[in-house]
């Protein structure tokens, strides 16, 4: 098994972070992972993306040109990477920021109102984690329990409120993923 993905969004939306938590969980579950960020002169509000590869075997190239899976947190990400998704692949997009659908017949497209969900939960920061929830329910890439454990280790003491908001966002994403 080898899954190549791109997580992309405005700087500050947490595209790189969601990729990191996916990589971390996959690593804990015994997979090899690589997390390669775009590291140009990025800034808050600009676009940022990360290429993540998850594999049973040792990963050779960490580059991702045609992803199996795209997390697009904003419209420019859909425009840029949507057409690159492999046939049979999956795109999870933030419908609050992507009014137009990609409408590719050969991939599955899941649109989730990530920004609204995050606002409802009470922390706009956690919109990225909704996409992680969708991935957990739509694929067998990582388990919810692994991600929860990692989040507890990292945020548990430092920011329990943010931890709960993150977990809520993931669960909401899982619900949406099941319906989609």
């Amino acid at each position, binding site marked *: 098994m080898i899954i190549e993905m791109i997580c992309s969004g405005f700087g500050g939306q947490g595209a790189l972070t969601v990729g*990191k938590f996916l*990589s*971390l969980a996959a*690593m804990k579950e015994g997979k*090899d*992972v*690589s*997390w*390669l*960020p775009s*590291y*140009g*002169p990025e800034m808050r509000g600009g676009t940022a993306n990360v290429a993540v590869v998850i594999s049973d075997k040792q*990963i*050779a*190239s*960490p*580059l991702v*040109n045609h992803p199996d899976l795209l997390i697009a947190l904003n419209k420019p990400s859909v425009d840029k990477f949507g057409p690159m998704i492999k046939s049979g692949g999956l795109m999870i997009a933030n419908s609050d920021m992507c009014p137009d659908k990609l409408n590719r017949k050969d991939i599955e497209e899941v649109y989730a109102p990530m920004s609204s969900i995050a606002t409802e939960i009470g922390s706009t920061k956690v919109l990225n984690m909704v996409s992680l929830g969708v991935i957990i329910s739509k694929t067998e890439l990582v388990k919810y329990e692994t991600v929860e454990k990692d989040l507890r280790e990292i945020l548990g003491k430092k920011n329990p409120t943010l931890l709960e908001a993150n977990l809520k966002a993931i669960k909401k994403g899982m619900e949406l993923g099941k319906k989609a």
Partner: protein
Amino acid sequence: MAEKVLMKGNEAIAEAALRAGCRLYFAYPITPQSELIEYMSKMMPKVGGTFVQSESEIAAINMVYGASGCGKRVMTSSSSPGISLKQEGISYIAGASLPAVIVNVVRGGPGLGDIQPAQGDYFQATRGGGHGDYRTIVLAPSTVQEFADMAPLAFDLADKYRIAVLILSDGLIGQMMEPVEFQPAKTDEELEELGRQHESWCMYPNEDEPNHHHHIINSLELDPHVLSDLVLNLEKKYNEIEKNEIRFEEYNISPDNEIVCVAYGTAARITKSAIDELKKEGKSIGLIRPITLWPFPTEEIKKAVHNNVKKVLTLELSLGQMIEDVRLALEGKVPVEFIGRVGGLVFSPEEVKAKIEEIL
């Protein structure tokens, strides 16, 4: 081995250096290497070491020169333009036969270039880099794990041969996160023992004792006969290193290979993906990945390129620098083809596959 952690290459090499007993680190920030200096600034005080963000790269390398003269494990790091600035100091370190570890997280050049991964510093790294007749050992990692493992290796080689060891990474390996397992940290006793190994030459071997004496460390020798002897002694050391320290990886090398690729670092990883794809189609392509760029695995490449091999393909993120060493190794035995990218661009596995198919 310890638990796996997910870390950037730049952070992993810093952590591994601390564990290897590096207690002095001097550097000036530059992308795509800055996480390394950042990690050192945070962690060095916690292990009781000294961190200095110097006023310039030149200052940093000269601090390394001084600290190394005291027999301590010392490191500096930078990216391409900063490494150019350090060359004078590296030459002095070579002239004075001092151990030091220098990390270059290579970016696109020449000049200030850009901040994307490149391999354009191969010539500089493998040909000494500064003025005069000298060599540095050059280690080229291709994964975050290997980058981290090269810290203890580099310090051990530097101590063993009293030589500067350059770790030639690139922006991709520096910025990327991958799982990494660290070797256990050296204990205080082990560090003291390492210090004692340098007493025969370091500046102040027994400062606290009443009969303390000093050694003079210098790279200036005005008598040409004496300097000649010094340089010939360096040559002996370099010959010894060429005999003992060549490291390389063979990937899919077999008697069926029609083409053998030669690539290092990031370029080698991408080549492996292309080789895997071609293998599915029944095509047998081998890869030699030099891990030490100096000493270069000359004989090993010659051996891998057996009589059935029709062509050799060198792959670099440059205009073609290592290809000269590959050609020297093969002595015209087979044609040597090349694929390169410059300016911080990286070829994709598909592009490498297409190139191999073109020359097959």
